[in-house]
């Protein structure tokens, strides 16, 4: 019910004032060292006291999710953001189990399924404890890896399952922002897969196994174009909703990644920030926080590695 989010949305609208602005990013860029950046972030209310840069970013992510837990007991609208974490953990668990490697810093916290549940399911080769959208692809990926030792195919199966789960969650949400976000996420991933397949000379079977269905791309036409040549791929994309992504795609993976993140930000601004009654502003806030944390990470690592301001700015997304 819409009324459930009125209090939460009002809090989030007030919190949006504390998000980093372009001026804040410029100020961070003007800092000479990562330590100076951290001091500037402390002025903006970030908890930086005696922590490493990575710890600061992790703490900010944790703070965002703690706020969401406080505002709404039901985090299902956020699953579109959390499924990649689940499938990353599933991949790691399967690979560790099959190769016998000890898991070390491979699991990520904050998914919808506890890491222990995933590990136990993989260890026992019984995936019934996992949600349906994970159980079947997990069993399939495990079998493929055991039989062929082909880690890439295992990843392909799980990546496609992840995208399918995101698209399904988007449709089921009946919320324009969640649906639009899920569609964009899946479509952008499909374009990246098709472009990569083109560069590495993959065959039709790979594309069929990798591409996840979405509403704004015709997968047969996309596969056909990717198998033909780069020009055909660009021509097909120029006839879709993603025509403005063709130039960034030509420029390279990094430019395309930046374009897709900017498009995601534009989607949040268009839908999420005009809404006062649904969960959309909360999702928009989480995405905005993820963007600013990513921007701070780019600046801090750029400063740490002595990159020029120009190169750092080229990687920064629109705020």
């Amino acid at each position, binding site marked *: 019910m819409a009324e459930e989010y009125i209090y939460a949305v*009002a809090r989030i*609208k*007030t919190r949006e*004032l504390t998000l980093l602005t372009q001026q804040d990013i410029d100020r961070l860029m003007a800092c000479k060292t990562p330590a100076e950046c951290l001091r500037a972030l402390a002025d903006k209310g970030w908890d930086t006291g005696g922590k490493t840069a990575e710890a600061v970013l992790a703490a900010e992510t944790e703070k965002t999710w703690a706020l969401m837990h406080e505002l709404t007991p039901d985090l299902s609208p956020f699953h579109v953001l959390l499924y990649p974490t689940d499938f990353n953990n599933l991949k790691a668990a399967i690979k560790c189990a099959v190769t016998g490697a000890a898991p070390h810093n491979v699991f990520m916290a904050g998914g919808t399924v506890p890491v222990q549940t995933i590990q136990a399911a993989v260890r026992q080769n019984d995936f019934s404890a996992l949600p349906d959208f994970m159980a079947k692809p997990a069993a399939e990926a495990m079998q493929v890896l055991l039989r062929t030792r082909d880690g890439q195919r295992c990843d392909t199966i799980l990546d496609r399952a992840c995208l399918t789960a995101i698209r399904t969650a988007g449709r089921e949400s009946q919320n324009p922002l969640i649906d639009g976000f899920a569609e964009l996420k899946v479509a952008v991933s499909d374009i990246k897969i098709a472009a990569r397949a083109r560069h590495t000379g993959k065959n039709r079977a790979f594309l069929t196994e990798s591409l996840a269905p979405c509403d704004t791309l015709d997968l047969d036409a996309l596969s056909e174009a990717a198998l033909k040549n780069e020009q055909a791929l660009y021509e097909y994309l120029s006839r879709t909703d993603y025509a403005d992504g063709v130039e960034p795609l030509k420029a390279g993976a990094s430019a395309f990644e930046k374009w897709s993140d900017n498009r995601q930000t534009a989607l949040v601004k268009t839908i999420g920030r005009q809404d006062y009654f649904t969960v959309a502003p909360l999702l928009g806030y989480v995405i905005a926080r993820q963007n600013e944390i990513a921007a701070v990470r780019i600046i801090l690592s750029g400063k740490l590695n002595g990159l020029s301001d120009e190169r750092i700015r080229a990687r920064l997304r629109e705020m």
Partner: protein
Amino acid sequence: MENFDINSLGIALALLGAALAALMAGIGSAIGVGMTGQAAAGVVTENPSMFGKVLILLLLPGTQGIYGLLIAFLTLANIGILGGSGDVSFAQGLLYLAACLPMAFVGLVSAKQQAKAAVASISLVAKRPDQFGKAMIIPAMVETYAVLALLISLLAVANIGSIAI
């Protein structure tokens, strides 16, 4: 049933009108203030200094309930329930009922719609406190229609007594 006088229903119909005006406009305001109250609490949680500004917006959807009460009170006074003859014909009862309906229905709907506009305005003020004036005007526009309904109900209820039917 042989001695049943249809005019005895007049006061019941008039009372039904008064009850509807108070009830429906009151329900609308309760829902509306509930919604704006949640939004105001959300803003004040993050920024307590905004309390004064959001309080005015919070109260806006409450006016319909007061208008409904006013119409109900005037009707009760006119039909003699608060003292007087209580002599209301069937036709007059129907007229009182009809006179109360604008306030009842417009009160219910406008309070809920005004609450939605006020919730959006509370968020606007939270993000841009300097825009308080504009934020006030937006939900106040909805009030226009509640005031028009109040005017019609008020004029009708006040003048029904002078009609000889």
